């Protein structure tokens, strides 16, 4: 097996594992997500445990990653370098949170629920991809306008 094939296979397995995690945790149930976001109603604290469990493991993994320069296959370790807390970050997070609360889907669970055959999840993913394409288009338009000035 070549290194590229092994990489692709491991990426597939991590995707599978991540999808399983979303299903087991309850993140793919919008009712559960909205139950967590409904502080004023009957509150379901489950999602705090999802976040807690994931971050507890992630904390050690990223601690290890920071001390390394190469990944397992000898390739680059792509750690984020951006540190700006700007208008884009805040406005983006606000819009995302509003959409998340509106239907109870975030991107990962939307994709997994679509694969499980939920018609509303299919519609959600199509609209989400459209929203992403609108962003790409506006972003390119903005950059072109900036460079032409």
């Amino acid at each position: 097996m070549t290194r590229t094939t092994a990489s692709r296979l491991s990426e597939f397995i991590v995707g599978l594992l991540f999808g399983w995690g979303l299903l087991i945790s309850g993140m793919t149930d919008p009712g559960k997500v909205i139950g967590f976001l409904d502080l004023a109603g009957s509150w379901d604290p489950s999602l705090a445990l999802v976040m807690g469990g994931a971050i507890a493991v992630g904390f050690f993994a990223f601690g290890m990653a920071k001390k390394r320069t190469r990944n397992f296959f000898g390739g680059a370790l792509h750690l984020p370098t951006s540190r700006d807390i700007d208008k884009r970050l805040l406005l983006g997070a606000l819009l995302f949170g509003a959409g998340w609360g509106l239907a109870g889907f975030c991107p990962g669970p939307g994709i997994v629920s679509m694969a499980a055959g939920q018609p509303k999840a299919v519609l959600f993913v199509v609209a989400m991809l459209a929203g992403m394409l609108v962003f790409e288009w506006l972003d390119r338009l903005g950059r072109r306008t900036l460079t032409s000035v």
Partner: protein
Amino acid sequence: MTIDWTHFTPWASLAGGIVLGLASALFILVNGRILGISGILGGLLAPKQGDWGWRAAFLLGMLAAPSTLAWVAPPGLISAPRIDAGYAAVVVAGLLVGYGTRLGSGCTSGHGVCGMSRLSPRSLVATGTFMAAGFAMVYVIRHLF
């Protein structure tokens, strides 16, 4: 506030969270990538030479998750999803999530899990902001209308 004990699933949610953490750990250490769904998808919509294969492989794995888990999981582990939002709300939500996650460079996985695990101030602010917006939206939908 009252606790919704009937829907509270502490063990399944904690176990699922640990699996999500393990996947994020493997992705950075084995593949050298941040496990952020909106970023992975965004890169597929505007593909660059040599930068789409890993995204496609990961996405295919996610798509295979429900059918494969159904083979191995004990019955009743995965509850049927409750989707209260109507079709119009689902479309608006999708547009907001798609545009917002790309503008803010991340979602629940990239900022919420990986960024928080790295103790990144940027991700901490993003996660606090999208959670606050989520709380506010659910308050408006459930308690004002």
